[in-house]
Structure formats: structure tokens, C-alpha cells
């Protein structure tokens, strides 16, 4: 684990309550430039609340949120943006009927001329769009194309490229691969790596360890509102991640259940046997059993509804 002073953003014992509901509790994590920090968690683990807190939508109820080692109190997403913390939401990214270049610069259009003749520098906008996209390795067909005609993966990639161009130092990606097919997800993962190579600190939120593992440098696993585990890449394997995500015990139960159901179906039985094999094969994790570096709380500390 790296030292605190080169972290771009840091949270210390961050908690967010909604009335009596504890959405996230005691989250401590570090995000470094040029690294991909994966936030993994199943539904209800507190991912959305954490992202919204990081991106300035919510103010934390307790704990500290630091940027460049300084504590900050974000009032809105604009505040976060001003500090270079950009969030790309799954669907809140693009305007489908507008062309690619218009979308790219929406809200930050380059202008030329002055006074009443100040106008959108269309030529420059198109050039930059093309340039920036190809820098990210995104290969667009025609910048005049309406964004609605792009595939989901292309749209996500475009949103990432835009955030990077407009000076994002921290890029928070909310489930960018969730709604995508295998190939499209691969496209987005490639741009995540590109962004990382350009020195951006990427926070990649996902519930899919198969997407997180190849690109992540650092994995934070959320369960029931708390940090369940915090590992760097060399401390963990994909199997561990899968197991921790689902919870080893729960996966075991599932295997048994499936075995009962599958008793009559040879194909299904074989599949279940393979799954059981996989679960057994995954070695017990040192990190999950006795946490070393960050404070790890188990499920019981989560919200009691």
C-alpha cells in the first residue's frame, strides 16, 4: 500500500446516513493518480451512495473527504468538477439527438469572435473531438453522427474521453460496463486503461469482478455499507474477488441448492459440479480472514434496515 501523501483523493471513516438507515459506514480508501481503483460490491452494498458522496451529490454525515491532502466540503457536483473530480454516470452522459462533436463540447463550447459576434468555433470543436477521441484510441466514424446511433460502449467511451479532455484528474465511472455485451465492455475497459495511462486516477465501480480484475490496480470490496476488503493487485486473484463479492458461504449454499435442483438434469449437474469445484479451489484468503491494513468490518456492522 502506498503512503497517504501521493493519494489524489482520500476518504477517512466516511459515513452517510439517511434517517435511521446507514447507507455507508466508516469507509476509508485512497485513490492514486495513474491507477485504477475498483469499487466492487453487490447490489445494496452502498456503491451508489459512495459514488454520489465522492462526486459531490451527497455530503457525508461523518468522516473526512480529502483532495490533495486537504479536507473539502463539496456542495454540488460542480464543486467536485472544479477540483477535477468528474463522474460519468451510466445513462446521464449524452444527448442522443445531438451529434458527437456537439455533445463533446456541450456546456464548454470553444468560441471565437467577440461581442454579439462571439460564436461557437465549430471547426475547432470538430477537430478537437476527433483528435481527443483518437488519442483515447476511440475510432469514430463521423463526428456529425448523432450520439443516439452509437453503441452503449462507444457512448461510455466518448463520455470518458470528454471528462479526460476537460481536465478530470479523478474519473469516477459508475458501472460503465453494466449494460454492455462482452465485446462492448472490452472496449470500455480499454479506455479505462488509456485514461489511467494519461495519469488520471480512475475509480471504477462495478459488480463484475471479471471486468474489474484485468484493469484494476487496487480493489476495494464493499459489503453491506462497509469496506469488506482492500487489496492491491498482487494480493489477490480473480477467484478471491469472485468469492468475496458473493460471500464464500453464500456461494456454498447456492451450490448445494443447485445440486438439489439439478439432480434430474445431467447437464445442469455437470455445471454445478464445476461451480462447486471452483468454489473449493479458491484458497482461503488471508486478507479476508484477518484484515491487515485497512479497518475491515464484517456484515454485522452494516445497516440493520
Amino acid at each position, binding site marked *: 500500500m502506498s503512503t497517504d501523501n501521493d493519494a489524489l483523493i482520500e476518504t477517512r471513516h466516511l459515513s452517510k446516513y439517511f434517517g435511521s438507515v446507514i447507507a455507508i459506514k466508516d469507509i476509508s480508501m485512497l485513490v492514486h493518480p495513474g491507477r485504477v481503483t475498483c469499487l466492487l460490491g453487490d447490489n445494496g452494498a452502498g456503491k451508489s451512495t459512495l459514488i454520489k458522496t465522492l462526486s459531490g451529490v451527497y455530503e457525508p454525515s461523518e468522516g473526512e473527504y480529502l483532495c490533495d491532502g486537504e479536507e473539502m466540503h463539496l456542495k454540488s457536483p460542480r464543486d467536485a468538477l472544479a477540483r477535477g473530480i468528474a463522474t460519468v454516470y451510466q445513462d446521464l452522459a449524452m444527448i442522443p439527438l445531438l451529434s458527437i462533436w456537439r455533445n463533446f463540447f456541450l456546456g464548454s463550447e470553444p468560441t471565437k469572435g467577440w461581442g454579439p459576434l*462571439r460564436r461557437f468555433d465549430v471547426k475547432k470543436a470538430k477537430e478537437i473531438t476527433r483528435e481527443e477521441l483518437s488519442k483515447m484510441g476511440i475510432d469514430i466514424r*463521423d463526428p456529425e453522427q448523432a450520439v443516439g446511433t452509437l453503441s452503449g460502449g462507444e457512448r461510455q467511451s466518448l463520455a470518458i474521453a470528454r471528462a479526460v479532455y476537460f481536465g478530470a484528474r479523478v474519473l469516477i465511472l459508475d458501472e460503465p460496463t453494466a449494460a454492455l455485451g462482452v465485446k462492448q465492455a472490452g472496449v470500455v475497459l480499454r479506455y479505462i486503461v488509456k485514461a489511467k495511462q494519461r495519469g488520471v486516477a480512475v475509480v471504477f465501480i462495478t459488480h463484475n469482478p471479471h471486468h474489474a480484475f484485468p484493469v484494476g490496480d487496487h480493489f476495494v470490496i464493499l459489503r453491506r455499507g462497509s469496506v469488506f476488503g482492500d487489496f492491491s493487485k498482487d494480493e489477490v486473484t480473480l477467484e478471491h474477488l469472485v468469492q468475496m463479492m458473493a460471500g464464500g458461504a453464500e456461494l456454498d449454499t447456492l451450490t448445494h441448492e443447485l445440486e438439489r435442483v439439478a439432480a434430474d438434469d445431467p447437464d445442469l449437474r455437470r455445471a454445478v459440479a464445476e461451480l462447486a469445484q471452483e468454489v473449493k479451489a479458491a484458497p482461503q484468503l488471508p486478507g479476508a480472514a484477518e484484515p491487515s491494513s485497512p479497518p475491515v468490518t464484517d456484515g454485522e456492522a452494516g445497516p440493520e434496515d
Partner: protein
Amino acid sequence: MATTATEPTADRDERVRRVGGIRKLLDRPELGAIAGLIVVWVFFAIIAAENNFVGMATTASILNRAAPLGILAVAVALLMIAGEFDLSIGSILGFSGMAIMIAVTPVDAGGLGWSLMPAVILALVLALVTGLINGWLVIVTRLPSFIITLGTLFTFRGLTIAITRLRTNRTQLGNLDEVPGYEFFRSYFGRDFEILGAHFSISILWWIAFTALATWMLVRTRSGNWIFGTGGAPDAARAVGVPVRRVKIALFLTTAFAAFFVAMSQAVEFTGADTLRGTRREFEAIIAAVVGGCLLTGGYGSAIGAALGALIFAMVQQGIVITGIDGDWYQVFIGVVLLAAVIFNNFIRRKAASR
């Protein structure tokens, strides 16, 4: 860099099909209006050939009719692209016209006895206030502008009728040409040009100027980009820093200004105003904008299209008048043209959204 078979070249990508002119035209929102214009013109050119549909006099009449509607339609189109409606534009028109007339009417007849310049400024200010009320109500209540401006449609019209009757005990006021300052306004807003024996109103030039200005703003300024963004996906636009509320307020002011402008030039042209002037203009302007390619859901459309839509509207009106077709059929025709345009636009949009 990852292994890609072909480097993306700066000039041309091999996956971009060379699209023909027709294909490119299909992507333009104005296409429906251009096609409609040709169809309607050819239709009347054939059935009204004996009534001189193709000729300077008829052309002038069509353009003179189209100009005031076109000015309204262009403003309405901008607002519709931003995802809102203004149904009160006809009432604001009537309201501004009467404001001018009451201000210039002699004191003993219930007016203020002003000269024309201050009266026009007063009407402008009042019109902008009505626009502000519309915009402010839409923003604050977050109700659909359709319902808000439907309410102000009646409110503003009612105020116009009530105040005029209260002060002057009349529904029409005239004799504007006797008011000091009239000649100045007439030379800019009420004049005719004679070309080959036909009289063209100066409002045609204003119509063209407003259309050009609106088009330039839409496609070549950041405000234009914001208008498209505001209508296309307000939340996404706000998230990237577009001042969505300010855009909407500004456009409600624009439609109110257009209504004022038409009211003023018509008052000057006809040397008077009527409390019912502008009635149903709001629908005609929306029809023109929709025929011109604006989507009712916002985010798509064009000012040139709306101007062409107004031209189609006027052409149908004039065509029916000179053909001698029973005027009762006029509304049927307008209704059919509107439906055809909406169906066509819907088809185009689906094509644009999922090519």
C-alpha cells in the same frame, strides 16, 4: 496502443459510407417542410392554374401572409427545440397590440395620449413581462409549459379584453396614423415594396432576417448548442454545466418578443388593433414549427424549417382563397398537412436515432 488493423486516419474513415445528397438531406429536419412546400405548390399550381396561382400577385399575397406567422413560428421553434411550448403567444400578440393602441389613444377616449415611440417601448416591456411570467411559472412549478401557457393564454387574452373595455369601452382602436411618430415606424415596419406590380410587405424582410439570425444562433453559437441540449436531455445538459433554466427563460422572452414584434408591425400596417387579434396564432405557429421539423419532445428542429412551415401554411390559405374552394375546407386541409408532417417527422427521427 492496442492492435488495430487500421489506424484512424485524420481525414477519412473507411467505415464512413459515401452518402449521397439525398441521404444527407434525409438527416435534415427541414426535409419534411421542403417536400411539403413542393407538394403544396405543385398541387395549387395545377388546380388553381386558371386563377393565376403562379404569378407575382399571388406570390406576394402568400409571402405577406407567411411573414407574421413565420416570425412567430421561428421563435416558437427555438422554444420547442428547448423542450417547451408557448400557447400564450397569440394572447401576448393581442395584448401588446392593445397596449400600444391604449397608450396612443387620446386621454378623453380612455387612452394615455402618448406618442408612438414610448407606447411601443411600453408594449415591449409589458410583452417581456408576460414572457417572464410564463418562464418563471414553468421553472418554479416544474409543471409542463403546455398547461402553464394554456392558463396564461386565457389570462392574457382576458386582461386585454377587460382592460380595453374598461378604459375605452371598445374592442377595437384605430387612427394610429394620426399619432406623432407614426411615419418613422411605418417606414421600418409598415411599408410595401412594389416589384413587378405586386406589393410585398416589409415584414417579409424582417421574417427573413429573424430566420437567418435564429438559424445562425442555433447552429453557430454556444447558446444554440445549449438550446439543443436543454431540449434533448435536460438532466444531462445540466450535469455538463448548461444553464437550463436561463435558456428556457430567455426563450420564453424570445417568443414574447416575437409576439410583440408582430403586434407592433401589424398595428402600424393596419393603423389599429383589435382585442381578438392573434387568436389561434399560437396553434398556427406550433403547426408551422412542427411541419418544419421540430419534435414535440424537444431537442430537434430548425428555424429555417419553421419559416418554411409558415410558408406552407400561408400557401394553403391563399391557395384555398383564390381557388374559390369553400373556405370551410381550409381547416381540413391544415389538419391533414399537420398530421402528415408529424408522421413523417416521427419516421425521420426513428431513422436518426437508430441508423
